[in-house]
């Protein structure tokens, strides 16, 4: 029996070899690098557009209405609210670090930030407008016309509006979070609890999906692998079908883009349906349905501490 114990541990070692080999090669999370080569004028124009309500039908909603740059990049609501107070079907993802995602939207239907910008403008539940309407409005103001002319030779076009907004969004990364500084060698950047949380994050398997520069955002995954999350939650909507709405493939049902966890402490409520109001709620749900394991309260706290250390600062002049 003692031998078995020892053997067991030894045998355990083999699969753990995989795990340890993982950690010995490089960290699964890398620090954010600031973008270079951005045209500052374009960024400023994009910022003005991002905060301009003229992009919506009744001039009430701007991009910033649902993606508050100073408040974590989202709207702190389970679902987004558009023109005429209409409630949308899905939670607003954060605009912060969105340039680090491989795809945009929960169902990954937009490959670039430029493509994404088109969505809310034309969505009747969100801004309920159109390129033509927006261009007309902007063209009516000499301030907009002049500014566009300064940056773009061909003035106000849909391509240029999207480009400017995307360029601004690319500038909305949050480098130098405590965890990034820890990764870069500053041992005192985070508390021990957070360090423990990171170790658990890796060991427990969270890091299999939430990896890379954005701690996620570069792959798709089914929500409820180890348990039927949607059956347990009930009231299934079309939004819940996720990537299936794009590819039509059955295996893509309930599959979503893995969200990035940068600044996650500021983006409650969580998940595409905004069902988890706090980080511990989210952590527990993830453990249950994605990892297929229990998790102790200490472990939750530690992971929470780690997740909180992922919050960086937006550039002051872009707020």
């Amino acid at each position, binding site marked *: *029996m003692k031998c078995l114990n020892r053997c067991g541990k030894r045998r355990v070692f083999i699969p753990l070899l995989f795990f340890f080999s993982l950690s010995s090669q490089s960290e699964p999370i*890398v620090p954010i690098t600031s973008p270079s080569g951005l045209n500052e004028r374009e960024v400023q124009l994009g910022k003005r557009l991002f905060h301009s309500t003229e992009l919506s039908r009744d001039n009430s909603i701007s991009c910033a209405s649902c993606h508050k740059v100073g408040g974590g990049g989202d709207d702190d609501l389970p679902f987004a609210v558009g023109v005429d107070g209409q409630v949308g079907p899905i939670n607003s993802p954060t605009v912060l670090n969105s340039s680090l995602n491989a795809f945009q939207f929960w169902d990954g239907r937009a490959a670039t930030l430029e493509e994404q910008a088109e969505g809310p403008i034309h969505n009747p539940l969100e801004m309920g407008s159109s390129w033509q309407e927006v261009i007309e409005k902007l063209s009516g103001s000499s301030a907009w016309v002049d500014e566009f002319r300064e940056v773009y030779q061909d003035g106000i076009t849909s391509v240029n509006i999207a480009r400017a907004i995307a360029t601004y969004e690319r500038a909305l990364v949050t480098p130098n979070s405590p965890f990034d500084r820890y990764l870069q060698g500053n041992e005192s950047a985070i508390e021990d609890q957070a360090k423990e949380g990171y170790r658990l994050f890796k060991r427990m398997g969270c890091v299999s999906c939430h990896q890379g520069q954005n701690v996620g955002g570069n*792959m798709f995954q089914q929500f409820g692998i180890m348990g039927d999350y949607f059956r347990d939650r009930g009231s299934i909507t079309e939004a819940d079908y996720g990537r299936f709405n794009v590819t039509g493939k059955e295996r893509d049902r309930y599959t979503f883009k893995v969200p990035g966890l940068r600044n996650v402490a500021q983006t409650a409520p969580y998940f595409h349906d905004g069902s988890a109001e706090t980080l511990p709620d989210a952590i527990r749900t993830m453990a249950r349905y994605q990892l297929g394991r*229990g998790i102790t309260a200490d472990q939750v706290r530690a992971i929470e501490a780690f997740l909180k250390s992922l919050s960086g600062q937006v550039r002051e002049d872009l707020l």
Partner: protein
Amino acid sequence: MSKQAILSVYAKVLIGLFLVLLVTFSLLSINRYSASYEYQKSLLSKLRLSSQQLHAQLLEVRGGFVVDYDGMVEKVSEINNLLSSFASSNSLNSQLSEEEKSVFGGWLEGQKKIDISSAGLVAAQSSRAQVVEDFKSNFSVFRNSQLIVFQLIADLRQMHADNRVLNDDLDKLEANALKAIHAMIDENDSALDSSLSIIRERHRKSFEDIDEFLGFIIGHFKVINTRESIISDIVRDEVVLSKDFEEQLDVFEYKLDGEYHQHSQRSSMYRYGFGAVALIVLFYGIFQAVRSGRLASQLLVHNENLEEVVAKRTENLKLATDNLQAEQKEREKALIELKESREMLDAIINNLHGCVYEYDIVDDSVSYMSRGSEDIWGVSPREMSTKEDIRKYTNQDDLPSVCSAFERSLDEHAPFNVEYRVMQKSGNELWVREVGVPIVENGAVKSVVGLVSDINEFKKAGEDKKRIQEELHHAQKMESVGQLAAGVAHEINTPAQFISDNLVFLQESAGELIGLVKDIEAEVEKSGGESTRQVIGELLDRADMDYLADEVPQALSQSAGGIERIATIVRAMKDYSHPGESLEFADINGALQSTIIVSKSEWKYFAKLETAFDEDLPMVECVVGDINQVVLNMIVNAAHAIVDKFDDPDNLGGLITVRTKTLEEQVCIEISDNGAGMSESVKNRIFDQFFTTKEVGKGTGQGLSIAYRLIVENHGGKIDVESEPGEGATFRIVLPVSQSQKNKN
């Protein structure tokens, strides 16, 4: 050079240009094509590399050497970008092919058409990207389950370390799990299942959540089983797809090389062709050069000969030009002189007080008319070009005499001189004298040259002179009449005198006789007998004594009055016509009185005449006769003015007033009337000689001018007039009392 030669030169130049362009074009297109080819080759090699890298990364992740998927995501995106660059450069390639086709026409059609399209590559990449996504999703889950299942077992073992039975069972479970996972034989699955069920049954009561625990474990094993084969399939697919992709790259490269080879073959062909053409052109050029060299030397010899000839000719020409120049100078001089004499003539003609013309008899029209036509007829020379024009502007009454003078001149070949009136364009009449001379050539009159001069002033002056003479005559007549009247007056005076005396006597006597009769009548009445009274009474009645007593005295007094009047008039006339010519102190008032009487006939019937003499008027040193004359004129004028105003002569509304006033060392005589008055313009001219408002023959216009002369020049006085039209006039004469004072002044 002949036309043909020129054309051939042009043709050669054009052909040459065309060839040059062709060469340039093809060289350029070759260059572009090469550049495009090189670029595409580099893209292909980059694609190949990236594809290999992607495959390597996937295996690394699979093998657990790489933990995050950012690298794979980047690779996929890199390949996509390379492919889109490739697609755009590919379209450039086919565009170049099109251009070549357009230049060489159907000649390229015969070439083998190579199908180059990158669409296949794009499709292959798309499938591969999908596979990569599937791999990521599945591998994460699979990997986790592999770890977690043993972690769960280990955690449980730790939690229940004291439960030896559980621990043993867990050990068995772990061992079976390992076998199941890593071994190939499916038998181990049943061993695993039995381990699981043993634990469930044996330790149900030992710890809570055992179902949950087992559920997790089973779930993970399921995942491991299913996902493992999925992942194997995915990886195999990825291998196949990446191989396929790279094969496509190879094929593409092969085709590209083939096309390039073709193209470079073609371009070398072009190059050889153009080289050959260039050589031909070169040889032709050399040939031409040699030929032109020979021609050039021939030309030189000819040139020398020519030059000699030319030099001789030039000398001759020079002589001729020199002569011409001299002649030219002479001519110019002559022209200048001509111009000057012309100008002088023009100046003379245009400054003549008249118009010079030449009338061409042959053409029967005016060949020259000077600017003087403006002065004479009031028209421009251009408007007097025919006989009719001249006749138009001639006074129709004078026309016959003018025409006959002209005709006679032509007949007699003699000058003519005629005075006539011209009707100017403005309507004015003008007296002119025309003098004309016929120009005779070969016995016939060629033209008539004439001068028409304005003699209007002279005529007028002549008329004035005539008028003055008439008035002078008239004045002389008047003077002689005056003298006659004076003589008559003198003769009348004497008898008038004694008649007057006799009348006085008669008046007295008549009075006495009548008185006597009355006395006798009274006496008889008083103391006479009846018969006496009766006889006396009858006698008185028969004599009509009452009547006589009334009428005789009356008749006598009337007669006396009449004689008195005659005497007065005579005296006045004597005074008037025998004035003293020398300066004497005279009684102005008396003189005026005489004048008034003398002039009575002029105003008696038309107006009343009142006098307002200053009683204290001093004696004035003057020539009384002059003063009388002046005042007489004025009174006559006043009367005439009243006649003008008052149509009805019986109306006697007219009033002439003669006043005298004493001024400081001067006296003032005023003659006022309430006649027609005079306007400002008349007032201004009233003292002008010959100025009169009366009809011709009625007034000489001399009176007031003479008055002016007499008063102002002879007496140093002043004379002026006040008048308003319709209101009458007042003539005022101011005389210095003493002439020595005048001299002082």
